[in-house]
């Protein structure tokens, strides 16, 4: 097991713990925005796609990489925008009502 793999396992373990702790506390009110936000965040696979698409190491990899960039970018943009659109709608009663 290369030592970088050991580090990666630690990171995975800890991030999963953080995820469970943080997400368990999200109010049910916001479960739909939660889905779209995590969706946007997991579109971080964009960084992997960018390196492949920009590497131009082979025709195949460039094509696949570019498609991957399209898919991931659509999620990044779409995910954040729609989450914000939803959250903008959640309002408390105006005071004095």
């Amino acid at each position: 097991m290369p030592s970088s793999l050991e580090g990666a396992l630690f990171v995975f373990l800890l991030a999963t713990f953080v995820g469970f702790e943080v997400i368990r506390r999200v109010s049910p009110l916001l479960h739909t925005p939660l889905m779209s936000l995590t969706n946007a965040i997991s579109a971080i696979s964009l960084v992997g796609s960018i390196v492949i698409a920009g590497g131009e190491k082979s025709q195949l990899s460039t094509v696949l990489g570019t498609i991957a960039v399209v898919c991931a970018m659509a999620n990044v943009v779409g995910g954040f925008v729609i989450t914000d659109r939803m959250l903008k709608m959640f309002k408390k009663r105006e005071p004095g009502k």
Partner: protein
Amino acid sequence: MAPYFIQFSYIVAAALFILSLKWLSHPTTARRGVRVGELGMALAILGTLVHQDIVSYRWILVGCVLGSAIGLPMAVFMPMTHVPQRTALSHAFGALAAALVGTSEYYLHTGALGTFTMAALSLEVILGYLTFTGSLMAFGKLQDLVPSRPIVYRGQNVVNLSLFAVAVGTAVYLVMHPGQSGLFPVVAGLSLLFGVLLIIPIGGADMPTVISLLNSYAGLSAAAMGFVLDNNLLIVAGALDGSSGMILSVIMCRAMNRSFTNVLFGGFGQVQKAVGTAEQRSVRSATPEEAAAILEAATSVIVIPGYGMAVAQAQHKVRELYDALTRRGADVKFAIHPVAGRMPGHMNVLLAEADIPYDRLLEIEEINPDFPRADVALVIGANDVTNPAARHDRASPIYGMPILDVDKARTVMVIKRSMSPGFAGIDNELYYMDRTMMLFGDAKVFVGELMKELTGSHVRV
């Protein structure tokens, strides 16, 4: 310099993503959460753009422009009632991206991949392709492009599981002999196929749970990509996504009192002839005038929205009703069941869209004690989440599911189009109670008529 900047930007981005989810937990900080998430993403992208492997920005630019052109309009113009479909589609996108990156990596380094890397890569590719077609199928079922009822046949589970076993077996062989590149398309193809077959036997209404599961798979696939590329940021983001999907599906299963296995292999919502209807019990149906008269006199009203409100897009009319009743001095609250509608938090988003203040939306534990004191419980397009059979009928498929105590209110009104059952395909004894008035009609239309009566009479007074 560049590598330092990359590493630095990735660490900060990981921290920002965590903060983003943390702040999402409460409505007052939620939008800050989105801002911070965007910042993290921007930072990560900037960091990546200086990567030494990148020789040209041409295709990156093309991809980004195209991607934005797809994602932005979808996010801006999509009606809120289509959120489940959009979520399914975006999982398909995310999973495909992960699978394609894995595929490129494999062909770029064929043979030069270590065992562990190859194992992670296989996981990434299998989960990625499977989630891709699975999510597309889910999208199809929700959008009614594919028949949404479960399609089952004898031996289906055996066929599916064997197929999956073959895919995994091939992948294991490939891990041990990474040079056998001919096997790679087999693994990819089988995974794509399995994704389709996995979803076919699942009913349209079970899609939300499945979508959450697929969400979790997409996250795991991204995390596996992180292992392949030795990129910790990907691992963190993937793990966050993975745990989020997992938690939401567990919440849904628990609120429906069903198990994962039952959702995946149960063929729920198929034939299931409603048994009780045979006896033809009588119900009391009422007109908008009659209902309005009772609502006028009520001082406390609890509204129970359900899937029907979403279908009818009645949320804005419901808001008008809320305003009218509130103006008359009635106390109006909304009872939100965790699985009302077709995805977690579905009702909350719709009602928020209609500008109903979120402190009026109460969860099951908070609202149930209030029902006995309520003058009217107004059910709008909800069904299963109000079915008292869940409390006492051990034979019922929803037995044990926590439900809203609608039957305890002084008067129960139910707006729906017919006597046909809801998602679980069973009869609802609530409708046969003496205190229940059935208000037959489309939710939007009927609430509109109620409004007309209420405001009309308002003028008359």
